[in-house]
C-alpha cells in the first residue's frame, strides 16, 4: 500500500511492527524480505516516488577538507534512493577487508567474508546479476578471449566485476512494494526526530514531516534507519532532545570515520605490444577485470586495498576527473555534465575517423592505458559528518562533512604503483608511468584531481565494543534494544569495492535478524 504523507490529516498516528526509515537499496531489500509475513512493515521515504528538487534540497549541506561533491547531489532522496544513479558495478568485499590489519588503525570487522557469503548469494538476484560467480576461470571457460595480464598472482591478481543493468530499485520494486499487503509505504515522510523511553534504551516513536506542513508520529516495535551514509548519521545526531549528543552517540562515534572510495587517475601503462585488454575494458560482456594487489602483498607493503582499472589513454586524456565535472548541487545537472564529458571524450576527431573506418572490423588495440586507482580510505575519526548551524526547510540541522585523509592513502597509492610497475617490467609487459603529483616520493597529500565514488561509509561503524562502534555485529545500535542501522554507514572499513552488493547482502542478513526479534 502507498500513502502520500502530505495527504494525511496533520498529527496522524501510524503504527506497525517494523518501521524502516529510508526506501533505498537497503530499506527496500529489508522490506521485500517481509513480503507475505505477518509483520506489519512501515516503510518511510522522505521523498516521493519520483525525483523532487524541493525534497532533494533537504540533503544540501556544507563540506570542508578535501574537495568533495556538493552534498545535495551525492545521495538521491526519493523512492529507490541512490540506486537512481548508480553504475551497477558489483563484486564481493574481499576477505582481507574484514580482518584486523595491524598497519591500518581502526580496521577489523566483527563479521567475516564467510558470514556474508550466503547473503551475497541471496543478494545477487535482487541486483539482477547473472550469477554469484566471481572466479576468473569460470568466466574464461565461457569466453576464452577474456585473457588476464600475465602477472604474478601472488602479487597482483585480476579481480572480477559483474554489472547490474543497473537495477533502479525505484523502478523495479515500486509495484511489488505497493502491492505487498503487509507493507505500508509512506512517501513524503521525512524523519525529523526520534523519541526513546526515559533512558533511551529503546525507541518508542519517530516524528515525520513534509513540506506540506504535516507532522505525523510513527510507532513500531523495531526501527531501522536506512537513509544512506551521510543521512544515517545526520538523523541520529539531530535526535538530540533526550540524548544531547544524539541517539546512539554515547561514545562520540556517530558521524566519525566517514570514508569514501578515492578514485585517482594516477598512472599510465605503456605496453610493448599493443593490446585490446578486452578483459579489462568496461565494454567486456557481463564481466570486467581490474588489477588488485594480493592480500599477502598488502600486508608486506602495509598498504590500503587498491584496485586499478584501465582506459585507453587517448580517450582518458580527454575525460576530466569527476570532481571537476560533478559540481552542480542538482544531481540531475551534474549527471548530465558527466554524460556530456563522456560523450565529448569519446568523440575526438581521430576517434571519429577511426571508428568510421574500422568499427566492427578490428579489435581496438592500444599501446597506452590510463590507470585509475580506486582506493579504500583509512578509517579516520577526523573525517566526519556533523550538524551544521543552518537548518533545512523542515527544521533539521543540515549535514556538514569534513573529508580528511591520513598519510596512509598516499603511501598506498605510491607503493601499489611501484609494485604494478615492477610486475609489468618483470613480465615483459611494458612500463608504468606515474602522473604528476605522485611521482615525487617526498610529497604529501593526494592530487587535487582526486575524485570519489559517491560511496558514503563508516559513519555508524560496526564493532562488538560500544566504545569502538555505533552498532554491533547485527547492526543493532549499542545500548538500544530495538534500533538498527542498515547500509554502508555500518562498514568499519571500506574495501576498494563498490558498496551496493554488500549493502544489499547485509540488509538481507539484517532482515533475518529482525524476523527473529519480531517473531
Amino acid at each position, binding site marked *: 500500500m502507498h500513502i502520500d504523507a502530505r495527504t494525511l490529516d496533520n498529527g496522524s498516528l501510524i503504527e506497525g511492527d517494523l518501521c524502516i526509515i529510508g526506501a533505498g537499496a537497503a530499506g527496500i531489500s529489508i522490506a521485500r524480505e517481509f513480503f507475505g509475513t505477518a509483520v506489519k512493515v512501515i516503510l518511510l521515504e522522505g521523498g516521493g516516488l519520483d525525483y523532487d528538487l524541493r525534497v532533494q534540497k533537504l540533503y544540501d549541506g556544507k563540506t570542508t577538507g578535501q574537495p568533495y561533491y556538493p552534498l545535495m547531489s551525492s545521495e538521491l532522496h526519493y523512492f529507490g534512493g541512490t540506486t537512481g544513479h548508480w553504475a551497477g558495478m558489483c563484486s564481493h568485499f574481499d576477505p582481507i577487508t574484514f580482518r584486523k590489519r595491524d598497519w591500518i588503525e581502526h580496521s577489523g570487522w566483527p563479521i567475516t567474508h564467510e558470514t556474508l557469503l550466503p547473503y551475497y548469494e541471496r543478494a545477487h538476484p535482487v541486483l539482477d546479476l547473472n550469477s554469484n560467480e566471481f572466479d576468473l576461470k569460470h568466466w574464461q571457460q565461457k569466453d576464452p578471449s577474456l585473457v588476464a595480464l600475465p602477472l604474478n598472482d601472488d602479487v597482483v591478481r585480476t579481480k572480477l566485476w559483474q554489472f547490474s543493468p543497473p537495477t533502479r530499485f525505484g523502478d523495479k520494486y515500486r509495484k511489488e512494494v505497493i502491492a505487498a499487503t503487509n507493507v505500508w509505504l509512506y512517501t513524503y515522510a521525512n524523519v525529523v526526530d526520534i523519541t526513546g523511553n526515559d533512558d533511551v534504551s529503546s525507541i518508542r516513536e519517530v516524528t515525520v514531516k513534509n513540506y506540506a506542513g504535516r507532522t505525523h508520529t510513527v510507532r513500531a516495535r523495531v526501527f531501522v534507519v536506512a537513509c544512506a551514509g551521510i543521512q544515517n548519521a545526520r538523523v541520529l545526531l539531530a535526535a538530540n532532545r533526550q540524548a544531547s549528543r544524539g541517539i546512539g552517540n554515547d561514545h562520540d562515534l556517530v558521524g566519525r570515520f566517514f570514508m569514501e572510495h578515492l578514485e585517482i587517475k594516477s598512472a599510465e601503462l605503456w605496453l610493448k605490444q599493443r593490446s585490446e585488454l578486452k578483459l579489462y575494458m568496461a565494454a567486456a560482456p557481463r564481466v570486467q577485470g581490474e588489477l588488485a594487489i594480493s592480500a599477502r602483498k598488502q600486508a608486506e607493503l602495509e598498504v590500503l586495498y587498491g584496485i586499478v582499472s584501465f582506459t585507453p589513454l587517448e580517450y582518458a586524456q580527454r575525460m576530466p576527473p569527476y570532481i571537476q565535472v560533478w559540481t552542480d548541487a542538482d544531481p540531475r545537472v551534474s549527471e548530465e555534465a558527466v554524460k556530456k564529458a563522456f560523450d565529448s571524450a569519446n568523440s575526438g576527431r581521430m576517434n571519429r575517423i577511426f571508428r568510421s573506418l574500422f568499427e566492427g572490423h578490428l579489435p581496438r588495440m592500444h599501446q597506452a592505458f590510463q590507470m585509475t586507482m580506486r582506493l579504500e580510505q583509512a578509517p579516520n575519526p577526523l573525517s566526519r559528518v556533523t550538524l551544521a548551524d543552518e537548518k533545512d526547510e523542515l527544521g533539521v540541522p543540515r549535514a556538514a562533512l569534513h573529508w580528511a585523509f591520513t598519510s596512509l592513502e598516499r603511501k598506498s597509492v605510491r607503493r601499489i604503483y611501484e609494485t604494478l610497475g615492477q610486475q609489468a*617490467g618483470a613480465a615483459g609487459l*611494458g612500463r608504468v608511468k606515474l602522473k604528476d603529483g605522485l611521482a615525487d616520493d617526498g610529497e604529501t597529500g593526494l592530487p587535487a584531481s582526486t575524485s570519489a565514488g559517491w560511496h558514503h561509509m563508516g559513519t555508524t561503524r560496526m564493532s562488538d565494543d560500544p566504545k569502538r562502534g555505533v552498532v554491533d555485529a547485527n547492526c543493532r545500535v549499542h545500548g538500544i534494544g530495538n534500533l538498527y542501522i542498515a547500509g554502508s554507514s555500518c562498514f568499519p572499513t571500506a574495501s576498494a569495492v563498490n558498496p551496493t552488493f554488500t549493502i544489499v547482502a547485509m540488509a538481507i542478513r539484517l532482515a533475518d535478524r529482525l524476523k527473529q526479534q519480531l517473531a
Partner: protein
Amino acid sequence: MMTRRSFLTKTVVGGTALLATGVFGWRFLSARKRPFACPLVLSTFCDEEIVRKIGLRYMALVPSESTRASLLQHLSAEIDDDRPDSSDLAGIAGEIELKAEQDFRSEKILVINNWIISRTEARQCALLALS
C-alpha cells in the same frame, strides 16, 4: 580507383609510419650502434630528449655513476661472459633487455621523471645523456 575510405586508410597508415620514424627513429639507430646507451623498451614510449633527461636525473641521484666508464662497467657486468662476439651489437641489446627484466624481478627499480624503470635502463639513459 581509390575509394575515399582507401585513401584515408593509406593516408593515416603512411602518416603514422612517417611520424614514427621521425619521433622514434633515433632508437633504431641507437640500438644498432650503441646498445648500451639505448633502453629498448623505454625508447618505444619516449623520445630521445626524455630519455636523456632521465639519464641526467639518474646521475644526479647516483653521482658515483656519472661517468661513461662507471656506467659501462655496470652495464657490461654479468653479460660479458656470455657474449660470444663483442661485435654482436644486436645480441648485446637483447642481453641488456633481459638484464633490465631481471632488475624488475629483483625489485631493482627507480622512479625517475615519473617512469618506473629498472636500474639497468636508468644507466642506459645516463650513458645516452653523456653521449
